């Protein structure tokens, strides 16, 4: 795969947060004052592809996408967008990139400025980037048509919108300047099952119409199964498994993947859960386990797992896993 096809490339990304200042750290006996929210992530996204990033709380998935869009600083690692490496991460340098990357936020109403009308919100990207608006009214109408919202909502305020409507406004805004990449953070969170399809179908339609690429971050496995051809599973700041969605569901390589799939309740009273449940909880980032971060909860953990963190290795057909004893290999 040549670099030309790649829209996004992330290499060994690290994002750390300081928990307390240097002085306190010294007083606390030099305890490491940093949290590694993202601890070495590498991934790629091809043009026109939809990549799903799956993880629970503490996985670092939100931090990862914020790092990609430049909203947080990174401690190490490199990011390329559309072939060009992002070196200067200051706001001014990032601005042209932000035209190319649209972002959809998890809480649709909270991500809309509360005292602005929908019209003002969907036209905001034009104003930020000084893009010629032409007839603002027409543009606003067009954007509403694109996402299937009535023009009457243009004069509404965010708190007057339903969750689904607010999400659509978020889509309209993210796509206003025809970006290349859209990053969606939990696009179906808070939406009833009967309307989840609306937003997902809309995203798929627009992907085809506008040639978009998506990164969809979610913890909702049934949803991701339908919308992305490839996924990456994150745990405590690292990717533990990556590959085609179908293969990951049919034959998970990493015990965590298997546990996640097993944990999803099946809407059929006669279909009990198959695999045993995962015990314990996600450890706090402060107490990152030594070796493989998953070993305290892993049913197949062995001595090596406790001391040595597994590196990502390639398995067959574009699948990668970070595990000393991947499941397929056990068969």
């Amino acid at each position, binding site marked *: 795969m040549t670099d030309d096809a790649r829209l996004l490339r992330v290499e060994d990304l690290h994002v750390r947060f300081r928990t307390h200042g240097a002085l306190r750290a010294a007083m606390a006996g030099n305890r490491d004052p940093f949290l590694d929210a993202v601890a070495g992530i590498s991934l790629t996204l091809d043009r026109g592809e939809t990549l799903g990033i799956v993880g629970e709380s503490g996985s670092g998935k939100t931090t990862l996408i914020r790092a990609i869009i430049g909203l947080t600083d990174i401690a190490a690692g490199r990011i390329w967008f559309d072939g060009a490496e992002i070196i200067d991460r200051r706001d001014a340098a990032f601005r042209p990139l932000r035209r190319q990357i649209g972002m959809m936020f998890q809480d649709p109403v909270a991500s809309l400025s509360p005292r602005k009308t929908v019209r003002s919100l969907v036209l905001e990207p034009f104003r930020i980037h000084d893009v010629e608006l032409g007839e603002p009214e027409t543009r606003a109408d067009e954007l509403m048509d694109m996402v299937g919202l009535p023009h009457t909502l243009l004069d509404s305020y965010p708190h007057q919108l339903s969750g689904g409507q607010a999400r659509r406004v978020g889509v309209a805004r993210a796509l206003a300047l025809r970006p290349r990449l859209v990053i969606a953070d939990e696009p179906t969170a808070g939406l009833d099952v009967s309307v*989840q399809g609306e937003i997902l179908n809309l995203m798929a339609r627009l992907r085809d119409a506008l040639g978009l690429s998506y990164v969809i971050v979610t913890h909702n496995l049934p949803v991701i199964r339908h919308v992305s051809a490839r996924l990456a599973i994150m745990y405590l700041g690292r990717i533990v498994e990556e590959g085609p969605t179908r293969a990951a569901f049919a034959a998970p390589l990493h015990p965590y993947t298997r546990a996640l799939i097993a944990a999803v*309740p099946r*809407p059929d009273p006669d279909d009990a859960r198959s695999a045993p*449940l995962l015990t314990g909880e996600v450890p706090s980032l402060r107490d990152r386990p030594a070796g493989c971060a998953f070993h305290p909860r892993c049913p197949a953990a062995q001595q090596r797992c406790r001391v040595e963190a597994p590196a990502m290795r390639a398995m067959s057909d574009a699948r990668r896993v970070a595990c000393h004893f991947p499941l397929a290999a056990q068969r």
Partner: protein
Amino acid sequence: MNATTPILEIAGLSVSFATPRGPVRALRDVSLVVPRDRVVGIVGESGCGKTTLISSILRLLAPNATVDAGSIRFEGDDVLAMGNTALQHLRGGRAAMVFQDPMSALNPVVSIARQMIDIQFRNGAPKAEKRARAVAMLRRVGIPDPEERIDGYAHRFSGGMRQRIAIAMALLMNPALLIADEPTTALDVTLEAQIVRLIRDIKRDLAGSILFVSHNLGLIAELCDEVVVMYAGEVVERGDVRQIFHAPRHPYTRLLLACDPARIPESGGAGAALPTIKGGLPDLAALPSSCIFAPRCPDAEARCLHGAPAMVDLGAGHAARCVRAGND
């Protein structure tokens, strides 16, 4: 009250809220029964009225709410006519609740031990015994080292742990009915699975019934013996869990099941469009005179537009509020 009296019996309950725009009819003619030793699930999406229903059971409705009609009987006693003493006995004693946010039940400035001892105020046991019961219950719900950890404060526990503590607190008084309102919605999926497993385990020990409210069909299927499906303030279908999931008779139930991504055959991202239910909820302040679901129903006929249908009894405890239910 005898051994066959249902724990909870709601008949024809209608509740409305007074608002500046006029009365909002949040619940209309809702009937449901929670028999002894059963888990009954209420499934519905936003705006279906499940929160209002739960609030009604414990008489925790907002001041602008009125019960327009119907009755609520708890172990045979009329809840709507209960005086303050009886209500106090009901809330937290005979009926206990677990909320979506465990912090609704946990006081952040008081130790867990103190809270768990305080809520046992109804029995006259000495403090040491109350504490022992509390520790035992924490152990039962899977809190490690309960002897030490019970003296901690809520913020020292993770979200999953807090929910376990909330469940422990609810069970401490041995309630006849445990009401769980979306108890796992705020939790990650692996934690959710653990909590659901815990509820299943407890179901065996519990000398009572569980009323489980959720929008998650998978959880309902896993936990519940009987299911009540609600839409926009009405019960549209009820039956045992297999009837609902394998032979749904109300169009809304069918569509809801069809929309659940976990039931849709996998397409691996190529994705045919996902099914949805077109349209939106009706305005409860300006109800149509038709069947409540008719505007969104793909099978609507002319007769659906003339008046709300009654529940059609389909036998074996299965009923659906649809004029076509008896036919198909």
